[in-house]
């Protein structure tokens, strides 16, 4: 199956809320071998002026890859996940992610380029913090329409290898 060129310009609206918990920040920090006390001790984070534990610089990948999954699992995309290679990644932080944040991600497909028998796909996740149920987790509300604060913009390119690559 080939990659659908019409994916370019497509967007997937903010879906489920991701609740950032202290133990998840600690677990992710240990997993990337981070030792800074601001990831582990609330007092250390507060001494630096943060309201709670601070997430490591690449923590937003959890939220971004959940958003990417909407595209990869979209039957219309033609993407075979077992042939996906991560080509590049960028995180721009508008403000730090801290424990207690409730995050949503809006996914944009910024580029689809044929490469050999495969394709390079560039996606961007706009990650926002929301309050309460403003992300629309309650029945009857529209996702992502409440007051929200820009937290991070992540961009990622994946190479989907063709059958001959």
């Amino acid at each position, binding site marked *: 199956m080939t990659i659908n060129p019409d994916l370019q310009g497509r967007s997937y609206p903010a879906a489920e809320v991701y609740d950032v918990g202290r133990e998840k920040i600690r677990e992710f920090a240990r997993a990337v*071998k981070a030792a800074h006390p601001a990831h582990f001790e609330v007092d250390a984070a507060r001494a630096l002026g943060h309201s709670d534990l601070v997430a490591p610089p690449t923590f937003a990948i959890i939220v971004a890859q959940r958003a990417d999954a909407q595209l990869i699992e979209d039957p219309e995309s033609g993407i075979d996940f077992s042939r996906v290679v991560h080509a590049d990644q960028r995180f721009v*932080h508008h403000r730090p992610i801290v424990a207690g944040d409730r995050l949503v991600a809006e996914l944009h497909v910024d580029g689809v380029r044929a490469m050999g028998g495969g394709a390079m796909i560039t996606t961007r996740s706009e990650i926002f913090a929301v309050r309460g149920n403003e992300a629309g987790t309650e029945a009857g509300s529209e996702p992502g329409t409440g007051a929200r604060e820009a937290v991070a913009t992540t961009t990622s390119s994946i190479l989907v290898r063709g059958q001959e690559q």
Partner: protein
Amino acid sequence: MRPTLSELTVGQALGSRSIEVTRTDLVKYAGASGDFNPIHWNEAFATGVGLPGVIAHGMFTMGAAVQLVTDWAGDPAAVVDFQTRFTKPVPVADTTGDAAAGAVIEVSGAIGALDADAGTARVDLTVLSGGQKVLMKAQAVVRLA
């Protein structure tokens, strides 16, 4: 003591560190991140898709490499922009049952640029494993006083 912008110069070295990686580390990263692609934990699957064996998540390498910057900056939140290209996979040998590393990632950093107006310093990271550059254009922009 956190570094201040005025005392930095372009080209200044920020030190280096070696990160030992085992298959267990990759399983931990898979669990923490939610990235369960079997190329990062299943040898048969990895070789079946043409890889030399189980490889580290690119995001593991990226996330571990930036700790040099975080610790130097004194506040993880000072890293306002961080990007890289993944150029070579990092194969991680199976050392289950003994204490040896399955791979070693060597990270060093230097000041690549200073922007006094924005109040930021760009740190360029050199990230090697097995003598090869595994990340390219690994750059972290750090906001400093």
